[in-house]
């Protein structure tokens, strides 16, 4: 892989929510980089903070602490006006293709709104640009006057992608873009995302819980658990040689569509549920479900460490 420069740098990012007298530490001290042109996959179970992390990086949520640098420039210090300009660089594709498109707007206006806000095109040029974007995502440009309900789930997700691409962003956070789609349609959308990346040099942060799809689409994969990152590595490496016991359990839990493999497989089944993020266990958050937990796991929080070149993990087994 050629040397790529850093597009996004996340530094000690924290996002806490106040709920009554309690604090929910949704994202607790994340630090990582995303290189230009790469796809970083983020996986974890519900409530691990992966979506909050994506939204906080785009500053859809104001962070509690920490910073995000886009091409070296701090995103969190920008004022309202500067932030608006910054949003042209960073866009988002949402999970639910039914809820994320305004049912009262035509597809043309949904995509055109982005052009209007940033003053990118008007009149005939606006129409041409909308049609160009629709054909880019393999939709019929003549359908720009239709409403979202006239499209299928996969087609709506394409509309969401066209809207994100309207402002020619460099970085897109894809928050579970395929989870709501049927298997045969998922592959269409993933192939489209990859073609667009190649054509336009896009950088993706791909949030999902489907580990086989994440492995397929990502250059590197990060695993989150209760607001913390527990492991980060090249996708091949992470799946071949997972270091953290949570990653190992997560990988072993995916059912593989091959009966022969399934018959022979020994699976690590974790006991119990994910603890409440409101009141996570002391020390390592995973220790209550970890098959390899040691006494020190409850006392000391493991440090985030580069165990092998490019392979990070936070676990006492590697200290």
């Amino acid at each position, binding site marked *: 892989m050629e040397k790529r420069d850093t597009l996004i740098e996340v530094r000690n990012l924290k996002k806490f929510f106040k709920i009554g007298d309690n604090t929910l530490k949704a994202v607790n001290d994340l630090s990582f980089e995303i290189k230009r042109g790469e796809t970083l996959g983020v996986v974890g179970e519900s409530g691990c903070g992966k979506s909050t992390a994506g939204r906080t990086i785009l500053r859809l949520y104001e962070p509690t602490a920490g910073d995000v640098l886009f091409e070296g420039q701090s995103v969190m210090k920008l004022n309202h006006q500067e932030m608006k300009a910054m949003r042209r660089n960073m866009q988002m594709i949402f999970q639910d293709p039914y809820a994320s498109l305004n049912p009262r707007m035509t597809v043309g206006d949904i995509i055109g709104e982005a052009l209007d806000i940033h003053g990118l095109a008007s009149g005939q040029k606006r129409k041409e640009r909308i049609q160009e974007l629709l054909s880019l995502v393999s939709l019929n440009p003549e359908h720009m006057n239709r409403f979202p309900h006239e499209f299928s789930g996969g087609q709506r997700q394409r509309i969401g992608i066209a809207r994100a691409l309207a402002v020619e962003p460099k970085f897109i956070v894809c928050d579970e873009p395929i989870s709501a789609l*049927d*298997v045969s349609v998922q*592959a269409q959308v993933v*192939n489209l995302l990859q073609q667009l990346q190649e054509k336009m040099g896009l950088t993706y942060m791909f949030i999902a819980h489907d580990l086989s799809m994440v492995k*397929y689409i990502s250059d590197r994969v990060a695993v989150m658990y209760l607001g913390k990152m527990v492991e980060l590595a090249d996708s091949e490496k992470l799946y071949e040689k997972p270091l953290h016991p949570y990653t190992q359990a997560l990988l072993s839990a995916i*059912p593989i*569509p091959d009966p022969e493999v399934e018959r022979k497989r020994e699976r690590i*089944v974790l006991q119990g*549920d994910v603890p409440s993020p409101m009141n996570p266990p002391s020390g390592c958050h995973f220790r209550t479900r970890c098959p390899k937990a040691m006494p020190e796991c409850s006392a000391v929080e493991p440090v985030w460490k580069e165990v092998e070149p490019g392979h990070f993990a936070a676990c006492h087994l590697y200290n």
Partner: protein
Amino acid sequence: MERILEVKDLHVSFHTYAGEVKAVRGVNFHVNKGEAVAIVGESGCGKSVTAQTLMKLIPMPPGEIKKGDIIFNGESIVKKSNKEMEAIRGKEIGMIFQDPMTSLNPTLTVGNQIMEGLIKHQKMTRAAARARAIELLTMVGIPQPEKRVDQYPHEFSGGMRQRAMIAIALACSPKLLIADEPTTALDVTIQAQILDLMKDLQKKTGTSIILITHDLGVVAEMCDRVIVMYAGKVIETGTVDDIFYNPQHPYTKGLLRSVPRLDLKRDEPLTPIFGTPPDLLRPPVGCGFTARCESAMRVCQEYDPELKEISSTQRAACWLQHPLAQNRAGS
């Protein structure tokens, strides 16, 4: 082998303002005693409607069983009255739904919901039913069952709610368990727990299972046989090995190719199935898959293929299986 369930030429339609939606169009299959059978297919292929019809849970009207028969344990279900069905639901056939939050009653304790069936069907006293409910909660792996039995569904996590639902479904030891996407709403590590539990319980109780899912991985792990549905019809059936290693129908092949496997390299593109399923308001005359099929021929548009025997265990509905098309199938 003894058949616990047989579905014969089942047609189910829904009458809507737009017209008649032919959701299930002539489905045939059977389930043997102690067997786990998967029904797979995309949203709208009729798999859930088929399952709900087995329990006569579809609202009628707008739903209607147009034609066909369902034989459960030697008796036809189709003509049974609602009253007679109540003796079967929960007692003979148990059901697990996809979303445990909306299918449990939020105003009743979990214990009461398990006890309901026991008191109604097995004429147990409240005290005996409660003791049995605690036993069932222990069996499905819920910690502190004596305390949990008096709690409400909102006090349970997603995985625990699904366990509670399994406990309700199994309370009266049904002969058949229908699980409609039982793990789709759950995280993978919790899914692994629930699948383990279902396999374990099946071994212990010998219940037959119909598992409805779109996750081919879950099928490979759980099931003995597979029924593939498309546009309201069964297009292929076989053992898991038949379907995964020797699929015959282009749709089954496409479905298997469109899931990324962990050993797939990044530079190989996924092979999606282009297009979308047909509108069942106006179902196609010929094979429902024609418009999306790479090997479609003219006959496919005009005549619907019938399920044809491939081996003693496998059948497929595709014109490529016709002797005249055999040289095409190879290419």
